[in-house]
């Protein structure tokens, strides 16, 4: 259900695009997130803060899922929703999506720093910069992508958990995985410009995020039941 507020935002959005001095992101390149590959090194976080439009501030979130039990980490960039919840809930109509599908940082003259977007975004992306009274968020490195460069994070990512390229490239480079851009949050279905890689074996129509939140972290664990004496065990100790 889209509110009247959002409809008016969309109309304005169309006009806004014409007035914003922008070059669209080349549409043959897409953003793919492959959390399976993430090594938690924070190169993306550090590189994001080097981006010219928001130097000194990183727009990426990188979190351990459950460090006590796993080194698994998940990098979160803006998913650039087709119907951005952040824009839908913005009472000031400050959040714009450009024609190429990129949801931009709030517009400074309009943003009232109310935090609605921060609370509403199902992916937890927008950041409230109280010192500027402004919501800032990942704009897929608009300054770079509009000039034909890759976003900073996806350029530097050492494990290529963040990948920017064509669909043909990702299909040939990641035969074990498949790209999904539909997410389920309770009753809300969201489709996004950014793709999430999931194992091909478990291919599903959408990713049920709320359900996944209750899952335990995946990956290897050391469950050796030994301490000091009896280092050796007959049974398998790596599961």
């Amino acid at each position, binding site marked *: 259900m889209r509110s009247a507020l959002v409809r008016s935002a969309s109309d304005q959005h169309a006009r806004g695009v014409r007035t914003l001095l922008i070059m669209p992101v080349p549409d043959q390149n897409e953003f793919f997130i492959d959390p*399976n590959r993430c*090594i938690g090194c*924070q190169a993306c976080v550090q590189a994001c803060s080097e981006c010219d439009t928001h130097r000194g501030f990183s727009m990426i979130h990188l979190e351990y899922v459950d460090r006590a039990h796993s080194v698994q980490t998940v990098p979160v960039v803006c998913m650039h929703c087709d119907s951005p919840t952040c824009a839908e809930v913005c009472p000031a109509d400050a959040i714009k999506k450009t024609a190429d599908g990129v949801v931009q940082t709030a517009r400074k003259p309009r943003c009232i720093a109310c935090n609605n977007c921060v609370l509403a975004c199902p992916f937890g992306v927008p950041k409230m910069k109280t010192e500027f009274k402004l919501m800032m968020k990942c704009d897929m490195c608009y300054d770079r992508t509009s000039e034909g460069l890759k976003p900073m994070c996806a350029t530097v990512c050492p*494990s290529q958990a963040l990948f920017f390229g064509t669909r043909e490239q990702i299909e040939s480079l*990641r035969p074990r995985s498949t790209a999904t851009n539909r997410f389920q949050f309770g009753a809300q279905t969201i489709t996004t410009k950014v793709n999430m890689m999931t194992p091909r074996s478990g291919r599903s129509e959408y990713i049920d995020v709320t359900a996944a939140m209750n899952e335990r972290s995946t990956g290897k664990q*050391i469950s050796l039941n030994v301490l000091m004496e009896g280092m050796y065990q007959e049974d398998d100790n790596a599961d």
Partner: protein
Amino acid sequence: MTEQFGPHPAYSQGERLQTGVAPDKLVKTHCCFCGQQCGIQLKVKDNSVIGFEPWEDFPFNRGMLCPKGVKRYLQGSHPDRLLHAYERDVNSEGGFRAVEYDRAIARVAAEIQRLQAAHGKDSFGVITGASLTTEKAYLMGKFARVCLQTANIDYNGRLCMVSAAAGNKKAFGIDRAANPWSDMLKSEVVWISGANVGECAPITTDYVWQAREFGAKIIVVDPRITPIARTCDLFLPIKPGRDVALFNGILHLMIENDWLDHEFIESHTVGFEAVAEHVHEWTPRQTAQVTGISERAIRQAAEWWGEARSSFLMHARGIEHHSHGVQNVLGAINMVLASGRIGREGCGYATITGQANGQGGREHGQKCDQLPGARDISNPEHREYIAKVWGVSADEIPAAGVDCYEMFRRIDRGEIRGLLSICFNPKVSLPDNKFITRCLEKLEFYVAIDFFLNETAQHADVVLPGSLQEEDEGVVTQIEGRVIKINQAVDPPGDARQDWRIIQDIARSLRRERGFTFTEPREIFDELRIASKGGIADYSGITYEKIEKQGGVFWPCTSEDDRGTPRLFETASWNPIARGAGPFYFPDGKARFNVAPYTPPAEDVDDEYPLMLTTGRVVSQFLSGTQTRRIGPLVDQYPEPRIEMHPQLAEKLGIADGDFAKAETRRGDVTLRAMVVTTIRPDTIFIPYHWAGRKSVNQLTISAQDPISKIPEYKVCAVRVKKDE
């Protein structure tokens, strides 16, 4: 002292934060940190590095960088930067007083002359580092032998790659990664032993993951579930210090199941029978008992390794930092040779070098027993050749010196009384470092060349302001054996100058400047090319221009039209030792199997110290932290070391995550917050080593060394832990 010299964490500010500032130029060069040497472009404005831009055309990393590479630019224009020469002066603020550069040089020369006249040439020692360019490393070796005429020179590669180097020389007759990383992509099995790839060689992760996308199985052997281990296909949680037992056990199963390349063993190797005999006792049961890995996992690993048609085996300090590090390496190589999977596309073997010039820095003579071109200082022919290049007689070149730890023991005994250090922070990086501190205080004269006042240099009598990596040019050889070019981005500030100029200034002041009158690094490189010619590490066909044109040149490269050697040991390849007899660097062209016996760590656990301590890196810091502890965003990423321990252990000790815990060995103790995680063996604790003073884990580590490589046993000693009340 800290107030004046730091470490202060630097952040982006001023022009570095302004978004509209266009750089004067972008300089294509490489990261100053690890052995991967990622290509990077530095943004330069007004002789200052203000940021970076990825360099996507460089073939190894294609724009990829780790957080250290991203923030490396913040080491430039740093408030802690040494801009003058300094003399120790207890009355001055910070304990040092700025002095005129020439006066400092004159004092250094006078002290060297005084000590050497009174106590002999060898009473003055030189310690150097593997982050220096190859030109500087070469010059340091020549400076020690020709100018100072001391046998006592060694380098911090002793802490890093020497076990792999010694093992490779014993087995292959040459010491270099056998393959370019691109070979990994065509491998069916990637075996990683003792290498925290995700944190210590992050870009290598992409190669490993890509190999898996194309069907490879990934086997990781480590006491901890590191990021590369989390999703590997088989994880073997080995007990620290037991690697060769595992390798012997795998070879045992390869023989039992006839997973052998008989033809390769027959025609390209010698010594298989003795090794086969030796591993006979390494049954899966015995292997499991010693290594702490289940029999089932060992059998699975052996089956995947045994049946693979192509493979890539990598190891790093995890198996090398041991009192039997060379045996661990030889055990790994035995597994590779028995499989016959080397010297072909998709069939690879390599050690992951740690330092920027870990490879090149160990080839051209700053190692105590070595001359340029990976020549042997005790070989008369080698001495003769280098003497000719240097314009001295072979008799004048000193004999082999001793490893850097032994040099400190010589300082302790009063045999070495004066020291020059460059690119080395032993007070933080050597084991049992309280001993190192005592030795530093015993020195009659100590001169340190560095760009920041690191913890060791704080003991210096004279500090000379050297150059950052971006303030000089020269070559380094990265992880794959690819020689690449560091390009100068900015000039050294203040009185600081390029290290090779400082060395030449000392030579001039000693009135021994013959052979030390180079005017640019290119001239040093040209002499190095001649010095390396005919040696195993032959650089004679490499030029700066060829490096730029080809995106690096793999040595050996013996002539102008030689494109270099990305892959070693190809069947029909020629080398100067075998001269066509075979692909390996021995007169018969055959590789050597070496019996690799297992011995327990020098200090095993007992009732008093019942746990094992292992040490290593975190992704955001580098080595002794001289640079990375001064880069704010990297400090914030992992502000201080923690004691990693398993919940089973934590519960037994009554320690909760975040509590302060005290780890204690026979040599020292450290009190740090605990990090309680299931990703480590319950009988082992891990502490990263990048910090100084009371946070330095090397207060605890043991100075036991491998008898062959002299590498210290950083990766295991006995420790006890208790909650800090």
